[in-house]
């Protein structure tokens, strides 16, 4: 009983915070969309009975239909690109580098094998860099990704310059517009780039420590590609499908990327909701709220479809398994029971010597194998080129994938030190440190904005840990009927698009006197950050090795002392990684900062967008690098802590 009360007490603060901010925001949006809140008042109207007038008005608006189609197009196209590219990237990076024996001998002058060691170290470093690339891209805030791609894909960007020098185009106007274009190509590229990293990281996580299965499959007769297809892909498939659902939900509800890279008309649902919310005509506010909730509904559709697909995959596997077992348990088992096959340990174990499969003799490549070997089974011609790909080819594929993840940052780095960079020059004719000097000038406001960003993210992380760590411990201890609903409750803020609760949350914060203030922004950030603290930690607590904790208990430590002196210190690496994640998620909150800060809490993201809007590319690029620094630094710190262990 005491244990149950303890858990309830641990869970209560997080539930209260999420109930007030997330639930309150959604409820306020719902009430406003139904015309029940003062927030929704139009000129001369009073709150009265609930009405679906806002929803009916939206259904009648042709631009709302176009917005829905645009949202669905962006979500589906970017998810498809991200999933295919991310899965390929994850598979290319799945094998840690430098695992194969050294093939080439050191040159005769290299008596101590220094060259070989240098090569090995270089290979290891390259492999680590390639594996780190998706994590770096994942840590880039969405607003920053939009900014980076705006600089890269804009007419006159680096690809257009390369195309000009290759003789493919005569002027920047020959390149189809990729930013602010009606087909949303720039938006899709930004989402696909980030989504690719997300899928690759999930695929890598799902495959970690599974190289043995591929090796086993190879010794049983599977080709390299066959082994991946039959052992690795089936393991990664549910993760990939789930990632597709999450990406669909996220892109459907995404705000900053279409705002910065998309066309003005048609705009996706979240941007349309934002514009309707800020319309001087207050009568459109119920429609803004209805649009925001519609966005959430569309995102939910994606998640439900993904969940159904995962279930269907599992069900299909179960059905196939049963069918296979049924077929098996017919003839051979009868034969076994009748004595044709006997269990091990007896004198006569199995049937006599096995017949060899009638395979054709296949001559291996003359340069590699010296003698023929019997071929086993069918080979798929389409895969054969990939199947022959040597490990060095795989290294190249990994390097290419890593470059794809990092390449967009190259023009950013160049822009930040360019005085001017006219088309079609491949490199700036003149360089300048103007942007960097301005960024570091205390009077310019950039440093202050950086400090505000860091302060908001730090405050959010601290607050999230204060309520999230007890909640994660409480959640980890749950096993009954409350576990799933509470998991869902803590997961929801990460899945529901911020626009859905953000508009209502602004009203909640205003009522609490926190609107347009630092505290309000940190409180708003707490909503999307808390799931990223509570859920990973609760999983870590559940999976932890309890031996050390039990040893502490047998040595006289109480539960709290064991927790404080043993469990938390031994989970330092996990806590560091989760803190880094919370910090980065807070930095990524562009829309909530705008809504809760009202433009008065000026974070680095807002300042950068202002420079981009003003057309000052060197300044925007410099600030993009400044924004990237904490992400890279925190990732490095988390990786270092994880390597060192507790």
């Amino acid at each position, binding site marked *: 009983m005491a244990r149950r009360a303890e858990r309830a007490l641990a869970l209560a603060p997080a539930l209260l915070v999420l109930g007030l901010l997330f639930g309150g925001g959604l409820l306020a949006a719902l009430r406003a969309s139904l015309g029940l809140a003062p927030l929704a008042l139009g000129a001369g109207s009073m709150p009265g009975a609930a009405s679906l007038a806002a929803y009916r008005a939206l259904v009648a608006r042709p631009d709302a239909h176009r917005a829905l189609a645009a949202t669905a197009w962006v979500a589906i196209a970017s998810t498809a690109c991200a999933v295919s590219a991310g899965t390929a990237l994850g598979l290319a990076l799945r094998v840690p580098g430098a695992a194969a024996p050294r093939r080439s001998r050191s040159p005769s002058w290299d008596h101590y094998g220094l060259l070989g060691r240098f090569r090995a170290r270089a290979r290891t470093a390259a492999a680590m860099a390639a594996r780190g690339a998706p994590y770096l891209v994942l840590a880039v805030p969405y607003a920053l990704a939009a900014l980076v791609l705006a600089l890269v894909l804009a007419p006159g960007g680096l690809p257009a310059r390369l195309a000009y020098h290759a003789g493919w185009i005569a002027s920047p106007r020959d390149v189809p517009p990729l930013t602010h274009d009606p087909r949303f190509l720039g938006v899709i590229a930004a989402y696909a780039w980030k989504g690719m990293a997300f899928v690759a990281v999930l695929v890598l996580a799902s495959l970690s420590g599974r190289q043995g299965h591929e090796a086993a499959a190879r010794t049983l007769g599977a*080709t390299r590609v066959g082994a991946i297809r*039959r052992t690795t892909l089936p393991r990664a498939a549910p993760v990939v499908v789930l990632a597709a659902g999450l990406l669909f939900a996220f892109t459907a509800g995404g705000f900053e990327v279409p705002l910065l890279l998309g066309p003005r008309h048609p705009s996706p649902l979240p941007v349309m909701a934002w514009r309707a919310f800020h319309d001087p005509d207050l009568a459109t506010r119920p429609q803004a709220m209805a649009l925001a909730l519609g966005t959430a509904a569309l995102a939910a559709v994606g998640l439900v479809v993904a969940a159904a697909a995962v279930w269907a995959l599992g069900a299909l596997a179960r059905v196939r398994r049963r069918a296979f077992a049924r077929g098996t348990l017919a003839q051979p088992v009868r034969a076994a029971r009748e004595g044709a096959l006997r269990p091990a340990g007896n004198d006569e174990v199995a049937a006599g010597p096995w017949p060899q499969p009638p395979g054709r003799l296949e001559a291996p490549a003359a340069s590699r194998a*010296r003698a023929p070997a019997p071929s086993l089974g069918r080979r798929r011609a389409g895969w054969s080129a990939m199947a022959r790909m040597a490990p060095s080819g795989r290294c190249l594929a990994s390097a290419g994938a890593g470059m794809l993840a990092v390449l967009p940052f190259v023009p950013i780095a160049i822009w930040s030190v360019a005085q001017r960079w006219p088309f079609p020059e491949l490199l700036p004719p003149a360089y300048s440190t103007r942007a960097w000097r301005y960024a570091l000038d205390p009077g310019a406001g950039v440093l202050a904005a950086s400090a505000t960003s860091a302060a908001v993210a730090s405050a959010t992380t601290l607050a999230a840990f204060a309520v999230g760590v007890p909640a994660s411990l409480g959640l980890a201890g749950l096993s009954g009927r409350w576990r799933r609903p509470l998991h869902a409750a803590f997961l929801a803020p990460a899945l529901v698009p911020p626009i859905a609760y953000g508009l209502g949350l602004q009203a909640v914060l205003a009522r609490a006197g926190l609107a347009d203030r630092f505290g309000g922004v940190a409180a708003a950030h707490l909503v999307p950050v808390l799931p990223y603290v509570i859920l990973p930690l609760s999983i870590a607590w559940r999976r932890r090795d309890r031996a050390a904790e039990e040893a502490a208990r047998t040595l006289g430590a109480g539960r709290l002392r064991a927790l404080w002196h043993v469990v938390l210190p031994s989970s330092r690496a996990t806590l560091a990684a989760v803190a880094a994640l919370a910090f980065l998620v807070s930095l990524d909150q562009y829309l909530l900062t705008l809504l809760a800060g009202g433009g008065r809490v000026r974070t680095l993201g807002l300042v950068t967008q202002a420079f981009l809007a003003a057309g000052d590319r060197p300044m925007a690029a410099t600030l993009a690098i400044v924004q990237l620094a904490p992400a890279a630094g925190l990732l490095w710190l988390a990786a270092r802590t994880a390597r060192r262990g507790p």
Partner: protein
Amino acid sequence: MARVALEGVVVAWPDGTLGLRGLDLDAPSGQVTALLGPSGSGKTTALRAIAGLLEPSAGTVSIDGVPQDGLAPERRRAAMVFQDHALFPHLSAIENAAFGPRVQGAARREQQARAASALAAAGALHLAARQPATLSGGERQRVAIARALASRPRVLLLDEPLANLDAALRQPLRALIRDVPRTTGTTVVVVTHDLDEACALADRLVLVRAGAAVQSGAPRELLDRPADAWAARFLGATNLIQGVWLGGTLQTGLGPLATGQPAGADGLRALAVLRPEHLALAPVDGPSAPNRFIGVVRSLSDRAHHVRLVASVGAVPLVVHLPPRAIAGRVAGDEVVLAVAPEDVWAVPDDQPQVAQQ
């Protein structure tokens, strides 16, 4: 039938360390060959080289006299059973077993028949519908062996097949592995660091140390005739007595020892290898014979299959393994006479530093 041979196989890791330093190995067809050696000696690396999971930096792996250089693992038909089993977690036991036939392009009914047959042979047919996560260690091992057997390999490679299994599970698995060459004609190569396991399983032992073969042959041959002191120690000979060849006998702290091997040159230092199970108690008043020593019992301790007696013969301690009945009534401090047949004494070159004498 497939003969596996490794000639001068070298595996150099990228950091410059050597996994194998010119390993020579001969695994005759239709027999069980065990690679025996301490942890880190390169046994598993050798197995992976045979399977084609790594390409040697130098040397040749051949099966049936055909060099396998550059040949992909799936074309060698050398199925490997991994130490951690590496069962595919998304497939049931029967689907795991059917994996080999499936990737070889067998028809569905044949897949089912071969998988069921192999599972039955491994005594794991009742586990057919189970997922790997629900199986115990022994059950997983059986399914892993069945999976390898169902692929009808020319060579079956087993990496520590009986490690982490309790004694009750070891016996049937041992019988299963030993029967594989006879029933299927498959050549079996087993990796183990356990001497008992190696002797129980193998027709032929290859003793591996630091990536190279130290000695190979039938298990009894290795036990009775170790190549050097390290091999003798690793093969369980705990009594290594320093001595010097003189006049055709080995002069040791136990006295002169007659051996079953040609004498060394006079003055040559050697270690006399006396296996504990070869020493026996002799009657105190028995006839005078060579290789008899009078000692004092220092300790007696029970083991599962024998009693371990430690006696001092002068300043030399001797470990003796005796059947429990043989030491009835003896206690520490008793005087005993120990004897060993000359053919059970084997001398190896002395690898110990010589003590400086005044």
